[in-house]
């Protein structure tokens, strides 16, 4: 574009035609996402062409291979230095390949892999008519309680479509924290949200509740998306570009050349503030921060538990990644405008999540509110606006996602005649009947509560330290107080499991296949390793703490 054109009276400088070239795609650097998307497409083809009997195995195989390969690609990129020295922006400015992106993509892929194990579990539900079934509806399209549903169950159908859906969701999540322009951000948001809405509706038991949850999630999610999109439009009006880098330059006032067509609106702070607020709102909806949290308990409760676990872990990772990038890349110049608001959101999220959780009587709802409180703790790290803040959030997310998937995997094991026994009163005396399961769940609860020697403590310490160093000492004090409140309800569950008399008609603990066992074992291992020897992972997170712009 540096062509110095000679202009006559009748011509004026215009962008040379050469600008509309073939897009340059760095396939290598985008390989993690491409592998997952490719595998998802293959999954769809499997649905179409592979005989029903072998679909399950084919789907699980494709998904496992894809996630492992994508993770290997992330590791290879990181080893190649793309996380630090070679960090760059790929795909024509749409996607950033840098430390935070690679770290979060690695986390999402591993969490997705562990979640996949719980998706593929087929030993928990009693076999229907001699066919092993998983947690998903026999045929999603059949009306609950109808004859066609019975026929589908009798025929031994299973919704193997969940595997490609899971892969599509993961693909969207991989792009979300790496998106480097607002449109990519929005597309990624939709790519991972739509499969999630669908998967929420697929529960095999309590189907009406599951469909209700999906509708709620979809409606509220659609609203949030609309807000985000509107915010994007306003930000475009403000900066004349959807690219993070350009917007940041406009915010800082260092933009080299202004498009005359946009000169009137460019730099209008009202557009910037309202636009940024709307976009951030959409992201806060996804992380489940108060006051955008209303969907969380209902959706967590209604969705099939494996989906809940995946959603609670991976969505949070992806959305916090995107939030970090947005706030740290576009808005550092606006720090003093967004910080007070985020302070308020963090405070009510921590306190609100912890206080409301106390009154819950359903284990899935309890974990939902606990996830809200945790979103507040993570926000405290986001607010630090320092390199330590980024790395502490990355570390927290990595630890938290495995605890969450593990905890929900344990929830799938405790069952009675109606499926999973999620009412808390049914968990009484679980420690007497199945000490091992109860002990494992206690480890997860202690990690949620942030007791030392678990990953929860290391993570909480890291974000609070970053927040305190960033001048947010009151936030730390409130965080500590809400941790104390939160500890109360985690402990209540432990009391119930270990110190209450078992009920005679209480639930049984199903013996899972090695798949769920592996998911739980990975959860416990990560929780303890990150608790006792977090140094390696803290280093990793701290190396990954710099965004490319």
């Amino acid at each position, binding site marked *: 574009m540096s062509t110095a054109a000679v202009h006559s009276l009748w011509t004026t400088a215009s962008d040379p035609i050469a600008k509309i070239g073939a897009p340059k795609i760095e396939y290598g650097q985008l390989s993690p996402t491409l592998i997952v998307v490719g595998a998802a497409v293959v999954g769809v083809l499997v649905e179409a062409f592979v005989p029903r009997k072998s679909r399950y195995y084919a789907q699980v195989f494709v998904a496992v291979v894809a996630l492992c390969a994508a993770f290997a690609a992330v590791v290879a990129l990181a080893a190649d230095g793309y996380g630090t020295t070679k960090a760059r922006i790929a795909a024509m400015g749409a996607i950033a390949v840098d430390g935070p992106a690679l770290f979060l993509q690695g986390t999402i892929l591993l969490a997705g892999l562990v979640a996949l194990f719980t998706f593929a579990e087929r030993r928990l539900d009693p076999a229907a008519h001699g066919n092993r079934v998983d947690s998903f509806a026999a045929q999603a399209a059949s009306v609950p309680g109808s004859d066609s549903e019975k026929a589908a169950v009798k025929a031994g159908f299973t919704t193997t479509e969940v595997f490609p859906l899971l892969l599509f969701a993961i693909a969207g999540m991989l792009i979300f924290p790496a998106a480097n322009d607002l449109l990519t951000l929005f597309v990624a948001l939709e790519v991972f949200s739509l499969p999630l809405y669908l998967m929420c509706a697929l529960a095999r038991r309590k189907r009406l509740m599951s469909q209700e949850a999906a509708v709620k999630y979809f409606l509220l999610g659609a609203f949030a998306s609309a807000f985000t999109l509107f915010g994007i439009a306003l930000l475009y009006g403000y900066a004349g570009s959807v690219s993070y880098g350009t917007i940041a330059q406009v915010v800082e006032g260092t933009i080299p050349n202004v498009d005359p067509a946009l000169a009137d609106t460019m730099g209008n702070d009202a557009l910037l503030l309202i636009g940024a607020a709307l976009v951030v709102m959409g992201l806060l909806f996804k992380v489940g921060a108060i006051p955008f949290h209303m969907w969380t308990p209902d959706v967590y409760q209604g969705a099939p538990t494996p989906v809940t676990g995946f959603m609670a872990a991976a969505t949070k990772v992806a959305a916090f990644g995107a939030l970090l990038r947005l706030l740290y890349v576009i808005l550092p110049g606006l720090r003093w405008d967004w910080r007070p608001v985020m302070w308020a959101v963090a405070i009510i999220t921590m306190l609100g999540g912890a206080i409301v959780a106390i009154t819950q009587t359903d284990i899935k709802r309890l974990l939902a509110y606990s996830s809200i409180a945790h979103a507040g703790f993570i926000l405290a790290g986001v607010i630090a606006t320092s390199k330590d803040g980024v790395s502490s959030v990355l570390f927290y997310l990595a630890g938290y996602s495995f605890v969450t998937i593990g905890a929900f995997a344990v929830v799938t094991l405790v069952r009675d005649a109606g499926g999973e026994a999620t009412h808390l009163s049914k968990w009484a005396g679980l420690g007497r009947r199945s000490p091992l399961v109860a002990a494992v769940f206690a480890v997860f609860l202690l990690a949620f509560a942030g007791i030392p020697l678990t990953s929860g*403590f290391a993570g909480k310490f890291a974000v609070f330290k970053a927040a305190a160093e960033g001048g947010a000492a009151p936030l730390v004090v409130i965080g500590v107080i809400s941790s104390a409140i939160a500890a109360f309800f985690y402990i209540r569950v432990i009391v119930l499991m270990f110190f209450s008399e078992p009920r005679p008609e209480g639930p049984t603990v199903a013996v899972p296949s090695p798949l769920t066992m592996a998911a739980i074992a990975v959860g416990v291992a990560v929780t303890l390793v990150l608790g006792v020897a*977090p140094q390696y992972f803290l280093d990793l997170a701290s190396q990954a703490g710099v965004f490319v712009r």
Partner: protein
Amino acid sequence: MSFPLLTATAVLPAVGAIATAAVPAARRTAAKWLALLVSLATLALAIVILVRFDPGGARYQLTESHAWISAFGVRYELGVDGIGVALVALTALLIPFIVLAGWHDADPLETGSKRWRPTQGFFALILAVEAMVIISFEATDVFLFYIFFEAMLIPMYFLIGGFGDRAHEHGEEAASTQRSYAAVKFLLYNLVGGLIMLAAVIGLYVVAGNFSLQEIVQARANGSLHMATSTERWLFLGFFFAFAVKAPLWPLHTWLPNAMGEATAPVAVLITAVVDKVGTFAMLRFCLQLFPEASKWATPVILVLALISIVYGALLAVGQRDIKRLVAYASISHFGFIILGIFAMTSQGQSGATLYMVNHGISTAALMLVAGFLISRRGSRLIADYGGVQKVAPVLAGTFLIGGLATLSLPGLAPFVSEFLVLVGTFTRYPAIGIIATFGIVLAALYTLVLYQRTMTGPVKPEVTAMPDLRARELVVVAPLIVLLIFLGVYPKPVTDIVNPAVKQTMSDVHQTDPKPEVEAAK
């Protein structure tokens, strides 16, 4: 590289805990013996530490230092001064007795699920607590200390909530409810204390940039680390609050009577004689050394709270109907003395306080364990259910009496020396407080002697007539403790020799000197 003695003392019981927990359900007795052997081996290591420790040598000895979490500025740093050595030895000494005294406490009544192994769990948890307590006495890194200070709550919580006395006045259902209430109360009080301390720990890091006790103390002494007065006070309060809950100091004490009342006697001893000592120890080691100015600033209030603890604890002990709760309130009174001694800021007061921690551990263990034997025979904790026991079980009554006399600080028994030192130390600086504190001793005589009189003397109650005297196992538990009480009462020098240099150091950290003895008339 020399053998990491301090680490070994903590790792041994930790490994023992895992091994004990892994013993199969059918081999219950093997688990008990394993736990006992591990605790004895730990005691042997503690004795080696005691021998290797040179009271006249460097301040922190047998030090170990390794990189741990460099991202947080945390190092794995261990080292003991005289105070730490005394308390490590006390812990290692008491655990075998606790294990032996609780020999049958966790035998399952009925065979439940094959995987349900309460006995293994009970002894594993005791060893886990031992490991964590020992490492917190040894840690010279604030973060390392904090981790184990908090983590020890979890095994302690399961010990209180999971195991209780067999018999209960209101039946098994009520017992179970009260037990889990006590456990939750214990955990919540201490967790809240610990979390507030967490905020202060983070604050300390923001101010100092690392967690090494020695480095921070040194930097503060030579002026390279400046702390604003208000910052220092806030941080001090954060630390002190956690330690005051743990110690416990009035008005944060209310969890202790519940916890000690509902737990089995050996676990009650573990709480008051071992775990709570971490609180008073940490006041000496962390509050005074890290925040000397703030400590002096807070002294008047803390002294008054300690005084209230002494008198209030003793008064409530007089009014108790329940033997175990009585001992709990007596302990609150004694912790008042310990805290009084620490914050009187005199060397007699602080050596007295340290000595008090050791002696209180031994004397409470003796009294409480004998009380536990008594309760297990009759199946009731109420004082009114007993009477005339000394005619039926003279040895039990005799040992109970000695334990009780130790609790009231009879001269010739160990606690007298420490209580005397604390009172002298307090009196030289704060005569009025010293005088009021003396009333605590009078009340102590009242509650102990009345307890003895009501349970052991008088006409033999019909339910007590068939009560067997102490068995061999129980004698093995009680006899050494009583011998120690008498020995340290007559000849406390071995302990004071170890403790005194460390106390002098602490005094100089707080920039305090003993007030000159002066006679009023000479002025």
